[in-house]
């Protein structure tokens, strides 16, 4: 018997499937280059509008190129793949372009309005001809804060309670409650506003105020908070609950002292998501908080300004300066949304944020 030593350290992992044939590389480049060149030609040397060239010339040529190149390089079998790639890249570019346009417009047109006074002043003495250095969204910012706070105070306990009922108490109606919460998530924001209008304002119970706005917001927040809380509570390991119960804890204690604190980060996420869902909603506020140009510190009486309504108000007025104020307010709102968005990712790195 001869003994040989096979030194396997000289073998290095390789990836033969990643090598591309020159033909395939050329084909892929042509699929991109040729349509773009034709597009460029038509764009610069004719009067045809860009969109038309895109739909009528670029896309068909690209699809044709994809089909031809694929057949010649890889065979007929892969044509489906090629067409799918072209179409899905088009879809994703379209979505990206629109998203980019929205974000860039808000940034570009809203940034110039940013100054300290814009964030702190109200619009009580502002007319369409007032310079932009005067006036701002201070009152609206405060109003939004108040309305959102009221909504949170109402929706969060109810939402968490619903989640507790579904997961920990497994009441007989658990499935039913879940179903109702889901149904509620489809209520349009304007209907929430109409309801509060009909039930509280038209009955003269309360007037247009931050309170009614907060109640309308609460209706919209509740399903989000409840659903996210449910998912989060489900993640708390059963063993934890069992251990606490075995130690003699009453059900209430188990939930309040053990389950909820364990799920704290997730619950916070649920609350933030609820706020994010609702912070830019305009329609319910138009019917409940109405609007004002001054700062109203009383949440229970008299209309209050809010950022979404501010945007609505100034967009509708038509003056150039008003439009700029609207963009400014939009920018502020986007910053708020961005902060909330970042916060959800901070509190739930595992991607619970949706």
């Amino acid at each position, binding site marked *: *018997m*001869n*003994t*040989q*030593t*096979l*030194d*396997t*350290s000289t*073998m*290095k*992992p*390789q*990836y*033969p*499937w990643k*090598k*591309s*044939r020159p033909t395939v590389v050329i084909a892929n480049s042509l699929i991109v280059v040729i349509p773009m060149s034709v597009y460029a030609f038509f764009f610069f040397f004719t009067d045809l509008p860009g969109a038309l060239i895109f739909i009528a010339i670029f896309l068909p040529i690209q699809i044709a190129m994809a089909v031809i190149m694929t057949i010649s390089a*890889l*065979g*007929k*079998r*892969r044509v489906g793949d090629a067409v799918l790639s072209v179409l899905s890249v088009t879809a994703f570019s379209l979505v990206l372009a629109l998203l980019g346009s929205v974000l860039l417009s808000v940034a570009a047109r809203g940034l110039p309005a940013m100054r300290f006074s814009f964030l702190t002043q109200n619009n009580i003495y502002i007319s369409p001809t007032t310079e932009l250095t005067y006036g701002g969204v201070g009152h609206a910012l405060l109003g939004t804060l108040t309305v959102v706070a009221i909504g949170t105070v109402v929706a969060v306990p109810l939402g968490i309670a619903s989640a507790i009922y579904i997961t920990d108490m497994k009441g007989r109606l658990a499935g039913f409650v879940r179903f109702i919460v889901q149904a509620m998530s489809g209520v349009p924001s304007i209907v929430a506003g109409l309801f509060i209008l009909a039930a509280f304002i038209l009955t003269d119970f309360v007037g247009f105020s931050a309170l009614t706005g907060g109640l309308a917001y609460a209706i919209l927040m509740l399903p989000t908070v409840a659903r996210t809380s449910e998912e989060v509570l489900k993640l708390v390991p059963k063993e934890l609950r069992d251990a606490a119960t075995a130690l003699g804890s009453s059900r209430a204690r188990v939930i309040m002292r053990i389950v909820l604190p364990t799920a704290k980060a997730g619950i916070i996420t649920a609350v933030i998501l609820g706020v994010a869902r609702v912070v830019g909603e305009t329609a319910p506020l138009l019917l409940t908080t109405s609007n004002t140009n001054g700062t109203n510190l009383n949440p229970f009486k008299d209309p209050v300004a809010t950022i979404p309504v501010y945007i609505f108000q100034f967009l509708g007025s038509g003056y150039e300066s008003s439009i700029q104020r609207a963009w400014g307010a939009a920018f502020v709102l986007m910053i708020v949304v961005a902060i909330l968005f970042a916060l959800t990712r901070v509190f739930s790195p595992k991607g619970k944020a949706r």
Partner: protein
Amino acid sequence: MTALQIDPTMKGNQVNISIVEDHQRLKLVDSVAHLETQGLYVWFGNRMILADINLAFPENSVTALIGPSGCGKSTFIRVLNRMHEFIPGAALAGKVFYQGKDIYDKDVDPVDIRTQVGMVFQKPNPFPTMSIKDNVLSGLRLAQIPFSNPDEIVESCLKKASLWNETKDRLNASAQSLSGGQQQRLCIARALAVNPKVLLMDEPCSALDPGSTRHIEETIRDISKDMTVVIVTHNMQQALRVSDYTAFFLALDGNPGQIVEAGLTKDVFKNAKDPRTHDYVNGLFG
């Protein structure tokens, strides 16, 4: 025949090999290797799973791959039909020849390989949204192989898979209405419809009842007249019943898997050259 003995005292990248006889591939007199690997090394990430696998599968034969769990047999057969590369982090070195050409060559279309080298998986996976009939034809549709006689194809493949009698009256029923064993036979019929020259089977009977196992083993013996079959199995008796050749894989203590012994089934089982093979086939370790 080569028997490779692995010295477990060696550590790290160095593996002691005792060569009992000098032989680098299986050969039965006059038979040409249809499918063979040369110097195959397989990795997941940086971990080497298989080292220096040289195995040749003669045409129209059945080869059983045996060995303890975790020594890389399933990974090995996925290399043979180019499904290994779907796993993130997968890598390999060496050559795999099919009909004389390296299937990992740049010019080769993996999709093409898979129509010629079919696979049946451990857990039956018929397409649940399709009927029995559509399942059988699904391979042809997926591979975009045109056909004009669906009913004949369905009947012939289900017959080959010993499933025709049990399903001929309900070809339009959902595939989910079949039992586990029937579903696996359906998967075999589906794979056969594409008319591959090689069929890879990854422990196809491990989750099935003895009746279905018997049917499937009959099918294997039948189809091996026209195609090369490679079957991974943990069942010694099955290997004895069904295969012409056997290869014994072993991976010791964190070392990559290797072939300890390979040859005619009766030789490997009755006259094992390596004591480890002898121990394994006699159930002394699993």
